[in-house]
């Protein structure tokens, strides 16, 4: 059985109905069921109130009988719906047809008992044909349309030629039994029915074609996206080796040359190492960004989040001390255990704290808070730094985007730290928000679920 969720990116076979799954067809059937309860109760109420209460000259016994038959049929349908699971599209579709035929017959009987061609309720046939046009494919829609036409035409002429009894509506005059009126009514009835079937079939055909087009285009886009990611992964892999080797080489030269080196040469090498480290960081970040499918059950471990935050923050204290920045950590009490991927959670904390230090003011403060919110844990990282312009706040999570202020502050950022944070947070099933004022500082708030699990796509 296919589930409803998958319908959205599944092509529709143009030869079948829009409702490709047994479960969704069953939902339609249950909906018809509700409508039918209303119809049956309506018939019984009219028969009792008008016929018995108001003593109007209508066919009370016939109407009551039809109402009761409808009630019984509907009870049978709903019992079946509760008893048996919907598993087979073909069976459900056949049942829809059976019900529709029964309904058309019941409607014809009701019309026969209540004036036939005089009764404006004859347009209920039209509603049936419209519903059929939504559920069935082209030919089947016209089968229902022709069945409606045949049933009602037979009923009308059956009455006209005295093959069936005619029950006058109390309000209708003798004119209603004249041939011109009958032909006029039947003519417009035929026209409306066939027009509805035609328009319904046409609309649904287009609808299916458009949906299929969308599904195909989405598939192409997803392929392109995958190809892009594969390309990034390949480029990352190819660049990594030479950059690593170059970095090791320059570091070795610096190490071996030592103090004996000309200061200007040493300065050049130091600058080279610093830029090579930046390149290494970009390559590593790109590798983080382009790797996927890490969130598997076997990668999840239990992590004491307080512990993880303390360890990760401690690794950044040297960097903070160099700019005279103080880091305050406020942990949750009692400790919070997360079922998560440790190195992803570490990277989230590390990148946010690292940004809070690097884009802070000299001697500023960084505050890191862990808050237990029940099903989730909240991590708040607040700085007193340069802040982010409001129109840039939506862009800082885009790959390689660096805010104007960030570019002025440091030329060593990769523009990948926050995109990685967002990617990891989303993969772990969390959320991230930023609140910032230029010149006052930024606050990043991350929430993570206590247990990360693979999301359904």
């Amino acid at each position, binding site marked *: 059985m296919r589930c409803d969720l998958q319908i959205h990116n599944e092509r529709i076979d143009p030869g079948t109905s829009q409702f490709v799954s047994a479960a969704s067809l069953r939902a339609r059937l249950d909906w018809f069921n509700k409508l039918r309860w209303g119809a049956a109760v309506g018939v019984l109420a009219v028969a009792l109130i008008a016929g018995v209460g108001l003593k109007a000259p209508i066919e009370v016994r016939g109407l009551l009988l039809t109402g009761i038959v409808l009630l019984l049929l509907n009870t049978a349908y709903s019992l079946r719906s509760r008893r048996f699971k919907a598993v087979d599209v073909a069976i459900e579709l056949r049942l829809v047809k059976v019900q529709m035929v029964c309904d058309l017959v019941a409607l014809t009987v009701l019309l026969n008992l209540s004036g036939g061609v005089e009764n404006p309720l004859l347009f209920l046939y039209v509603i049936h044909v419209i519903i059929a046009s939504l559920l069935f494919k082209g030919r089947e829609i016209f089968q229902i349309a022709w069945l409606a036409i045949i049933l009602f035409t037979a009923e009308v002429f059956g009455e006209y030629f005295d093959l069936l009894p005619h029950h006058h509506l109390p309000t209708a005059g003798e004119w209603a039994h004249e041939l011109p009126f009958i032909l006029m009514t039947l003519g417009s009835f035929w026209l409306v029915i066939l027009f509805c079937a035609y328009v319904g079939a046409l609309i649904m055909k287009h609808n299916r074609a458009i949906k299929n087009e969308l599904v195909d285009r989405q598939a192409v886009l997803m392929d392109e996206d995958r190809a892009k990611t594969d390309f990034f992964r390949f480029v990352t*892999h190819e660049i990594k080796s030479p950059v690593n080797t170059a970095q*090791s*080489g320059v570091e070795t030269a610096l190490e071996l040359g030592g103090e004996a080196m000309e200061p200007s040469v040493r300065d050049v090498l130091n600058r080279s190492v610093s830029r090579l480290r930046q390149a290494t960081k970009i390559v590593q970040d790109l*590798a983080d960004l382009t790797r996927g499918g*890490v969130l598997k059950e076997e990668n999840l471990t239990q992590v004491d989040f307080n512990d993880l935050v303390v360890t990760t923050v401690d690794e950044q204290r040297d960097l903070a001390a160099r700019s005279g920045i103080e880091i305050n950590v406020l942990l949750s009490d009692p400790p919070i255990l997360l079922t998560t991927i440790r190195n992803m959670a570490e990277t989230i904390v590390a990148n946010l704290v690292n940004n809070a230090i690097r884009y802070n003011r000299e001697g500023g403060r960084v505050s890191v808070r862990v808050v237990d919110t029940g099903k989730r844990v909240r991590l708040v990282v607040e700085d007193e730094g340069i802040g982010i312009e409001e129109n840039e706040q939506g862009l800082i999570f885009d790959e390689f985007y660096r805010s104007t202020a960030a570019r002025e502050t440091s030329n060593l950022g990769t523009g990948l730290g926050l995109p990685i944070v967002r990617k990891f947070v989303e993969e772990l099933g969390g959320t991230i928000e930023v609140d910032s004022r230029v010149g006052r500082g930024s606050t990043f708030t991350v929430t993570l679920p206590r247990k990360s699990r693979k999301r359904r796509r």
Partner: protein
Amino acid sequence: MAEKTILVIDDDIDLVEIIRVTLENQGFKVIDAQTGERGLAMAKEQNPDLILLDVMMGKVDEGFQVAYELRSDEVTADVPILMLTAVADQTGFDFDPARDKDFLPVNEFLEKPISPRDLVDMIRKHLPTSV
């Protein structure tokens, strides 16, 4: 004390030369091989005191295969192996020899790029008798 011999198995010739300069400067003797096969042969013939082994050479896991073969050969079974890797970023693997020692055939993972000082420290730590 005798000069310690380090075998470097890596297909990146430039990196091998950089490592050679670093290690020779510290008084080690460096021999090298550019393929896993050649490295295995040299390990058996020349009895190095320690092996530096790259993970990804011709094939993605060539280094691992070499490490398993070194461990299963009587002559080389006890030679410390330090594995140079850039593989963690590529695969999302998070190796930890202390945790995974039953399954990992090496003494240490060194994530590239490794600074010359860290490399020398690691080699000293894992040599049978320190130099």
